[in-house]
């Protein structure tokens, strides 16, 4: 039995790799057909991120927000709620940390901690809203969270415009963050900051939360079969609210950390898109927190590679959008390579059966 599970899990991994490979193959074909300098473009795309230490630093920098929103979406989707609020939660988290950074005077060690915790709390509160609308009035989570993202964006810009805006900045941006509020850099020669370590800790904690605590078990059960969870005595209402709040907290935390780690002012002009990226990461990781770093690394590497490629050659970095789409569809497709999966299940079952017969 254990052997069968192992073989299936290994197969799932191979399947994901095959999907990624196929998507990259399509990308290569597109580059070959559309570029005047396909070899250079491919080289920049694949090897660019490891060609310079600074570029690899860019990959790690980009991984940090992806880790947080990837974890956030994994937890929310585990409860079978298609809550896309991580986009808005990330945004208001970033704004909340900017508010703490610019409006309060705190000692250097404590200032960023307060900033990112406030960011997380704001994220948790907003993530609750679509869940409550769903549980109380049966409003579709997906649509209401999408709409709420836009509302949060405009609310955020109002707040920025009337409370945080630096009139000297020229552009619409907040006052400059004091040094006491900013996160420490940890890799000289790059902008990688201590947020990476917080992110890794978050991965470990959320893994333990989801797989080693009763809370996590309940979230996964509700996600798999809500009626079953209800009949076995779980408080489904509470479980869903908790899962969405944990997710929102992570997304908000990510926003705060990104802001205080990478920026000197709040200057987003629109939603930054990390919430949607979190969906991609969670799909690649199959909602498993332990695999979120793999998904986040892959996506960050793709993005930086595409960026380097578009700067040095004639291929647009938007190519990544196509790769992402193909990967999501194939990874999430039950029937992609399903014949092989069924054969594994069949062979293992036959082996089990013959073992039972022999024993008799």
């Amino acid at each position, binding site marked *: 039995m254990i052997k069968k599970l192992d073989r299936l899990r290994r197969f799932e991994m191979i399947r994901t790799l095959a999907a990624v490979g196929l998507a990259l193959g399509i990308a290569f074909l597109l580059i070959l057909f559309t570029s005047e300098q396909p070899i250079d473009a491919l080289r920049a795309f694949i090897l660019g991120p490891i060609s310079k230490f600074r570029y690899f630093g860019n990959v790690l920098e980009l991984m940090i927000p992806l880790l947080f929103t990837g974890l956030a979406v994994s937890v929310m989707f585990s409860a079978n709620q298609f809550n896309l609020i991580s986009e808005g939660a990330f945004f208001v988290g970033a704004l909340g940390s900017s508010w703490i950074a610019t409006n309060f005077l705190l000692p250097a060690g404590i200032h960023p901690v307060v900033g990112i915790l406030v960011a997380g709390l704001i994220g948790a509160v907003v993530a609750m809203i679509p869940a409550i609308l769903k549980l109380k009035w049966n409003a579709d989570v997906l649509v209401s969270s*999408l709409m709420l993202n836009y509302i949060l964006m405009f609310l955020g810009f109002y707040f920025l415009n009337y409370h945080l805006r630096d009139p000297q900045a020229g552009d619409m941006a907040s006052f400059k963050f004091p040094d006491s509020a900013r996160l420490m850099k940890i890799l000289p020669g790059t902008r990688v900051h201590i947020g990476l370590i917080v992110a890794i800790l978050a991965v470990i904690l959320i893994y333990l939360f989801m797989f080693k605590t009763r809370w996590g078990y309940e979230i996964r059960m509700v996600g798999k079969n809500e009626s079953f969870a209800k009949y076995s005595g779980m408080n489904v209402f509470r479980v869903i609210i908790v899962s969405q709040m944990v997710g929102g907290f992570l997304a908000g935390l990510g926003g705060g950390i990104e802001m205080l780690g990478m920026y000197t002012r709040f200057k987003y002009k629109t939603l930054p898109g990390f919430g949607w990226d979190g969906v991609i990461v969670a799909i690649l990781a199959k909602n498993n927190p332990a695999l979120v770093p793999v998904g986040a690394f892959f996506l960050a590497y793709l993005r930086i590679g595409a960026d380097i490629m578009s700067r040095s050659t004639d291929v647009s970095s938007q190519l990544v959008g196509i790769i992402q789409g193909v990967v999501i569809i194939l990874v999430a497709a039950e029937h992609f390579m399903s014949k092989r999966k069924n054969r594994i299940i069949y062979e293992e079952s036959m082996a089990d059966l013959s073992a039972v017969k022999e024993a008799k």
Partner: protein
Amino acid sequence: MSSIIDIIGTSEFWYSVIRVTTPILFAALGALISDSAGVINIALEGSMLWSAFAGVVFSAWFDSAWIGLLAAIIIGGLVGLMLAYFALNLKTDIILSAIALNLMAAGGTIFLLFVVSGDRGISSSLDSRVLPKLFTGLADNVPIIGPVIFGHNVLTYVAFVLVFVTWFFMFKTPMGLRLRAVGENFHAADSVGISVKKIQYQALVLSGIMAGLGGAFMSMGYVSWFSQNMTAGRGFIALAAKAMGGVSPIGTMIASLFFGFASALANYEAEISVPAEFVKMIPYIFTIVGLVVYASKKQSDVKRARQKQAEAATSSKGGE
């Protein structure tokens, strides 16, 4: 407050309500058709974006707005077809498939725009065409309502005509009946020999075509170019309009007009003495409120029906 009333009193305002309603209405009718067949189409946004792009490119290449429109319709339907293939054949979760298609549309259109024209983000070097406006002469000759309902883009009239065509299709044709049967209970439909998969394929393609018309309007009527993410969430607003409008195309139209009203008001932000951010928020707030009202009404309807059934059951038992 008085400034808002002044704005609502002008015929230009109501003209713009109809204008901004058009793309939402197309996509909402698409959402209605696919939802009726029991398949949710969140890729409406992607269909619209690809179609807006195709309209600009093909109308520029062939020097004809009509060929652009045709291309937009075909591409919109193709996105629906892809969604159907992923969801019904590859058995990918239909929501995830649609998210993937939307991502591909956002990146793919910009990628291809650069390939075909060398433009980055906006089609400034493509000499694309726009679809004609109709009844412009009547606008000034008919008092009060003339300037409101005449002189719109041809697709605006198509959208409102499609409301009635969709109604007829859904409720008066055998195919519409099959569509609704599949959405209502696909096991029952299957048992009487309806091919559920085929019907859902058709529904998704049709809804993609509807969204495609909305996309064509965006780039060949609303404005005369293609730009990055120009649909700006209209496909999602359409989903909400559908949710609010219930199961009838007329309801969908009223809900779409409601969103059009809110969006049009947001366009007058400069003249309203409220912070612009709040005005821009209005359509989205309306969407959530509408969604909650509709969903909770439906929920209480179901409860009431169940209660009635239970009462009927007990009273019939009492009679025995």
